[in-house]
């Protein structure tokens, strides 16, 4: 790999992204309140379980009875600066609310303190939601959401695990490949108006190609050079950084959507789920089953597992490890792209750092299941998905739902470092 070629290679790596160059930037800038030594801020985000609420008026009244008004921004955020410490009453102006909403907590009292931003929590629900949400129903709903997240994580983490198994590399840029799936979806389907099916297939193919291409121009030459694994890992970190900012460069810091229209919803008893989510879960299950079948029953799948088990032995027994690894990269990136596309459809949008936010969940899933075991990653992903979605229902503060998943990972490593499905030891 010549020094001169390096620039070209890096440029080519990002080639699929150039397709997206026509994207536009449109994100509402939130006004910011900075607390100071003699100033305090009161702030909050107004949202229902469906999404944020812009353009709602909120009244803040101080102890003396003097009232100020603010309006929520495009992202549902509001904040206000106050000059005195003390108690303030924060109240929603219900006439400015959209219809079909039920106000749970329309008024709260907060204590302002200089130099700090005090959150004021106002809760609003949609009508059908507040109708009958028992704890049990909530649990059911979050379990379904957890399975959904778990399946999407599984798509990406199976590939991550296979790459780790066959090459020993922890690929930090894997999350950016997930984002790439969503971004390409946005570009092909939303901007260029391709049908969901055609666009989706194209997205997966393009992502798979990036995998093939990356291994061809980057990872394979680096393996041949004998670059150490920790150095390789740092290369993936560099790639991840570069890709994140390429996304931000092209589409801005805001969220973009794959589909313009709002998703339709199905109800099964207490469970509400969008049809897109249902389809996504179905596709995930089918694809994961196919991958599993391929790994267990086909020649190439067995070769992959052999390389994963013991590369030296596999290559001695006539398996072309380079070919297998190339295939693993291709499939893994295709799966990551699919995961990203489905994720963008399910959570209704994708951002430059969407992947970054789930990167640790992916690593957690892979480690939980056992580093390098594809089926372990599947189990790990489902567990992580469930933990993330169910833990807030069973009393964990919502802020901590990702932290809970990571904590579980660390605790598991203490008692069972090889992961759930990892082999505790090998016959020597």
């Amino acid at each position, binding site marked *: *790999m010549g*020094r001169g070629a*390096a620039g070209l290679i*890096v440029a080519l790596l990002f080639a699929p992204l150039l397709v997206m160059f026509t994207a536009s*930037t449109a994100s509402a800038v939130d006004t910011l309140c*900075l*607390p*100071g*030594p003699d100033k305090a*801020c009161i*702030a909050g985000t107004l949202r229902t379980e469906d999404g944020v609420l812009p353009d709602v008026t909120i009244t803040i009244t101080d102890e003396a009875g003097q009232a100020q008004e603010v309006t929520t921004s495009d992202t549902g955020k509001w904040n206000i600066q106050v000059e005195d410490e003390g108690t303030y009453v924060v109240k929603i102006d219900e006439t400015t609310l959209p219809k079909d909403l039920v106000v749970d907590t329309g008024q709260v009292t907060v204590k302002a*303190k200089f*130099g*700090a*931003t*005090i*959150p004021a*929590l106002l809760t609003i629900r949609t009508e059908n939601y507040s109708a009958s949400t028992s704890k049990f129903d909530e649990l059911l709903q979050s379990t379904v959401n957890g399975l959904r997240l778990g399946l999407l994580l599984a798509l990406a983490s199976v590939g991550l695990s296979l790459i780790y198994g066959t090459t020993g590399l*922890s690929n930090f840029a894997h999350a950016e490949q997930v984002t790439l799936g969503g971004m390409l979806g946005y570009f092909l389907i939303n901007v260029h108006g391709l049908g969901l099916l055609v666009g989706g297939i194209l997205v997966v193919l393009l992502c798979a190609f990036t995998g093939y291409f990356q291994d061809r121009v980057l990872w394979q030459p*680096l393996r041949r050079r*004998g*670059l*150490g694994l*920790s*150095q390789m*890992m*740092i*290369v993936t*970190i*560099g*790639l*991840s*950084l*570069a*890709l*994140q*900012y*390429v996304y*931000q*460069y092209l589409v*801005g810091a805001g969220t973009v959507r794959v589909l313009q229209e709002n998703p339709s919803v199905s109800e099964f008893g207490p469970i509400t789920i969008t049809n897109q989510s249902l389809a996504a879960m179905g596709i995930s299950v089918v694809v994961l089953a196919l991958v599993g079948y391929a790994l267990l029953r086909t020649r190439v799948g067995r070769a992959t597992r052999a390389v994963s088990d013991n590369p030296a032995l596999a290559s001695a027994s006539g398996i072309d490890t380079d070919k297998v690894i190339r295939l693993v990269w291709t499939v893994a990136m295709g799966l990551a792209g699919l995961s990203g596309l489905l994720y963008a459809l399910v959570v209704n949008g994708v951002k430059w750092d969407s992947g*970054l936010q789930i990167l*640790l969940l992916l*690593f*957690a899933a892979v*480690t939980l299941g056992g*580093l390098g075991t594809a089926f372990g990653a599947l189990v790990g992903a489902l567990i992580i998905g469930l933990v993330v979605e169910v833990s807030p229902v069973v009393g964990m*503060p919502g*802020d*901590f739902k*990702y*932290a809970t998943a*990571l*904590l579980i*990972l*660390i605790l598991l*490593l*203490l008692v069972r*470092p090889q992961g759930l499905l990892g082999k505790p030891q090998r016959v020597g």
Partner: protein
Amino acid sequence: MDTIQGILNGMMREALSPQTAAVAIAVIGLNIHFGFTGLLNMGQAGFMLLGAYGMAISVWHGLPFAVGILFGLAAALVFALVLGVPTLKLRGDYLAIVTISAAEILRYVSRSSLLSDFTGAAQGIPGSQYAHPFQNLSFFGKGQFTLLPFNYLDVADGAAWVRIVGWLLLIGLITALVFVLRGRAGLSGNGRILAAIALGVVGVLLLFFLFPVPNQATGVNGWWVRFVAWALVAVCTFVVFLLVRSPWGRLLRGVREDEDAIRSLGKNVFSIKMQALIIGGLFGAIGGMIYVLPTSTQPDSMGRSLTFFCYTALLIGGAATIFGPVLGAVIFYAARIGIKYTAAAYIPDSIMNNQQTEQFSYIVVGVALMLIVIFRPQGILGNKRELRFDV
């Protein structure tokens, strides 16, 4: 010409900024982990966050400044122990996964609205709440500190001859320093070290007066923060110099090369790795404190990206070298600003708008990180010979 001047000024400001110094200190710590011991600590930002919050929360809630610093350091120490005990006996990648996860947990916790009275939640703690005891320590006074014709707002009313003399003096000091360090000045042992320190301190002081850099940060204390930050960088570099030239440093490198060999020679590898993790983590905590002193303590400014920037800086300068971390941090921040300003000045808005120049600079950072690792893994100061043998 003005544009170039502007770009250079911006780069100089960034290179000398206290944040750069803070990151340099954190990278010095990371160098102990990754460069010398081979520990893949992916959570250096977590150590910084603990140092910063330990200090900020303590002072915010009325404790003395010194106690705040101790709390910050203690938090980092406990963090290192908690991370190290389960993972240091496992394979290297486990440490990476656990440290990055634990650092993220810390960030989630510190931005949680449940703790807003304590941590200020996602908004963090504004600097005005904890920086004053530090600022009160300033001996730069209220902008009136004058040394001969120098004061730190301007150099002798901008007289050119003073500046030239100052620069010549500085060059002389640096030359003398090199002579002393190479042992040609006829000094030995402690005398040599003392002379080197004295020359270094005087040189740094002089340097501060010689840069009429626009003072961007908080009023009269802008230079004070810079001075303390860079003095700490010097102290930390010196401490690392002492550590790695000692038999202890030799042990660290031995562990990096082959743990089992070191074990077979009767050394307690776990304890050595733990010591390295703690020492590097404490540097991280000190860096974190400096990082937040001139601004505010915000959880999201100390996330994964910061750890990645630390790695980039370390690899630019050269892992397992003494001055690599400092050089790397300075180059990293100065070059990023240089790229950004150059792009903003010379690339028309229709191709790259102002926001995009920022992102462009980070893209370059990412690509640069890849290229460095691939083509010059030893960094600027590293020894190629040392890296040739693969282990």
